[in-house]
C-alpha cells in the first residue's frame, strides 16, 4: 500500500483525516489538500489496492475489500480513530469504513456520492467493463476530455496533467473501482449508520451533481450538512485548496478549538 501523509502524528484535539480517491485516479489528487490539512492534524491519503502505486488485489474487489485493506493500513499506521473523506468511489469506501467499524470513524466528508437502484446499476454496466487491454491513445485522450469537461472553470491543462497520469498507472484494472462502487448498497449502509455519524456532503458542479442530492433524505444526524458548490468541479482540491479546507475544518472541528499549525511537509511512503 502506498501512502501520502502530512502533519503531526499526534495533534491535540484533532482526529487524523483519511482521504480516499476517486476512480480511476489515485491518492495524488489529494497532495495539495493534505499539505493544507496537515497544518493542524495528521492527514493521509492511501492508494486503494490496484490504484496508484498500491499492489493490485488478485481478483476484482468489492467496496468491503477496499475497506478491509484500508483498515489494515490504518492498523499498520497505528491510527485507531479518525475522520474519513471520500471522493466519488472514495465516498462509498468512506461510508463503508464508518458502517463496518463505527467505533473508529468519527465524521464523514463526501465530495459527491451517487447510488443507483438495481435497474440503474444494470444501465451503468458499461462502466464496469474492462478497458481495452491494448488501450490506444484515443481511449486515454477520451478520459482526458471527460476530466476537462467536468473540471473547475479555469483549471488549465497543465494543472490537469499534474494528476492525470495516475489514471494510467495500472490501466488493465482501472475499471475495478467502478465495478465495486456501482452495486454498493448506499441505502443499506446509511440505514446501519442511522443518526450516529455526522456527514458533510459537498456537491460541486461535476458529473455527479444531479445524483448527489438524492442522499439528502438519508442524512439523519443533526450536524450533517449538504453544501452545493456551484462553479466548482474536478480539481477544486488544487484550485480552491484553502477554501475547501476551511469548509471541511469547520465541519470536522465542531467539537474542538485548537489553533492551526504551520505548513506541513508531504511525505510519501509504503
Amino acid at each position, binding site marked *: 500500500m502506498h501512502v501520502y501523509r502530512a502533519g503531526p502524528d499526534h495533534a491535540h484535539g484533532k482526529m487524523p483525516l483519511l482521504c480516499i480517491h476517486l476512480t480511476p485516479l489515485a491518492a495524488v489528487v489529494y497532495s495539495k489538500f493534505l499539505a493544507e490539512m496537515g497544518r493542524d492534524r495528521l492527514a493521509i491519503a492511501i492508494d486503494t489496492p490496484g490504484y496508484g502505486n498500491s499492489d493490485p488485489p488478485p481478483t476484482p474487489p468489492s467496496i468491503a475489500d477496499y475497506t478491509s485493506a484500508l483498515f489494515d493500513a490504518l492498523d499498520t499506521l497505528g491510527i485507531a480513530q479518525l475522520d474519513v473523506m471520500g471522493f466519488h468511489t472514495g465516498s462509498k469506501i468512506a461510508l463503508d469504513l464508518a458502517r463496518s467499524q463505527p467505533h473508529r470513524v468519527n465524521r464523514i466528508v463526501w465530495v459527491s456520492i451517487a447510488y443507483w437502484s438495481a435497474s440503474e446499476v444494470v444501465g451503468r454496466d*458499461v462502466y464496469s467493463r474492462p478497458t481495452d487491454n*491494448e488501450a490506444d*491513445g484515443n481511449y486515454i485522450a477520451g478520459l*482526458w476530455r471527460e476530466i476537462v469537461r467536468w473540471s473547475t472553470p479555469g483549471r488549465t491543462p497543465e494543472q490537469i496533467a499534474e494528476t492525470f*497520469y495516475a489514471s494510467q498507472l495500472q490501466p*488493465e484494472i482501472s475499471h475495478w473501482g467502478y465495478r465495486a462502487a456501482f452495486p454498493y448498497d448506499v441505502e443499506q449502509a446509511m440505514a446501519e449508520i442511522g443518526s450516529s455519524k455526522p456527514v458533510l456532503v459537498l456537491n460541486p458542479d461535476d458529473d455527479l451533481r444531479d445524483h448527489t442530492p438524492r442522499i439528502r433524505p438519508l442524512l439523519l444526524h443533526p450536524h450533517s450538512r449538504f453544501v452545493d458548490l456551484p462553479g466548482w468541479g474536478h480539481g477544486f482540491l488544487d484550485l480552491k485548496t484553502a477554501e475547501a479546507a476551511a469548509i471541511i475544518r469547520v465541519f470536522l472541528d465542531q467539537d474542538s478549538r485548537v489553533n492551526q499549525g504551520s505548513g506541513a511537509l508531504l511525505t510519501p511512503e*509504503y
Partner: protein
Amino acid sequence: LVIPAVDEACTGNNPSSETNARKAYARVGDRHLHYRVAGSRRTTRTPALICLHAAPFSGRSFVSLLEQLDHNRQILAPDLPGFGDSDPLSQTPDVAACASAIGLLLDALGLETVDLLGHRLGSAVALELARQRQSQVRMLVLFSAPVFTAEERADFERAVRAVQPSEDGEHIIHSWQAFRVRSLEGWNLAAQFADVLRPQALAAWASDALYRYPLAERLVQVSQPVAIYNPDDEFSSATRRAGPLIKNGFLAELPDWLPGFLDIKAATMATLVRDHLDGAVR
C-alpha cells in the same frame, strides 16, 4: 468520474501488475527517491545491479527484467530525480546531477560495490556515476549509448519542444503514436504510458540532457569493463560510434530489438546481462 465505454472482452491477464519487486522511498538530502528492488543481498556476495532508465520513463520500465534477474542478485531500479515518483532536482537538472543523486541513494542504502545497467539517458547517468565513483562501480552494461555529432545536436535543438498539454487531449494521442509507431509487436505500451503522461515528462529537459552530455569524452575516461548493446532504435547509428571508444569491453549489435525490448526480450536481456556480469563474456 465517468469513463467512456469500451466493448473489449476481458483477457484476464494483467501484464502491468508487479509481482516480484518491492517499491520503496529513500530520503536523500531534502528529497525522496523512489525505487524498486528485487532479490536479496543475504543470499549472495554478488554486487547489486542498479538499473537506470531512459527518459521519460521510470524504474517501472525494468519490471520485466527484475522478474528475470532477481534469483541471482539484488537488483534495484530507481526512478531518476524528476521521473516516476522521485522528487525533481532543485537546480537545472543534468546528467551529472542525476548521477550524484543516485550515488547518494547508494550511500543511503549501504551499497558498497555495484554494477550498473543503463538505457539511453540511463546509460549516460551510468557512465557519469562510474566516473564519479570509480572504486564503487564494478562493471557497466549499456543499452544504447549514443555519441551525437554536432550536427545532430543542432538538429535536436531546433526540433525539440516541450509537449504542451491541450484541452482536446491531442498531446496524448501524439505521444502515444510517437512511442507506438516503431516498437516490438505485443509490447504493452499502456503499462508504461503513465510515465509518458507525467508533467515532468512533458518537459523537454530529459532528452536535452542526453543530447548535451559529452558521452564520447566520458566513455574514454571510464576504466571499468563496459558492454554496450545497440538495439534497433533511432539512436542506433549514434550508439555505433561509441564502439571504438570503449577501452575495456565491447559493443554488440541487437538487430530487430525495437523499442519495447525491455519487456518483450527481458529473458534474453537477462541472459546477456548475467553473462557479462558473471564474467562469461569478454
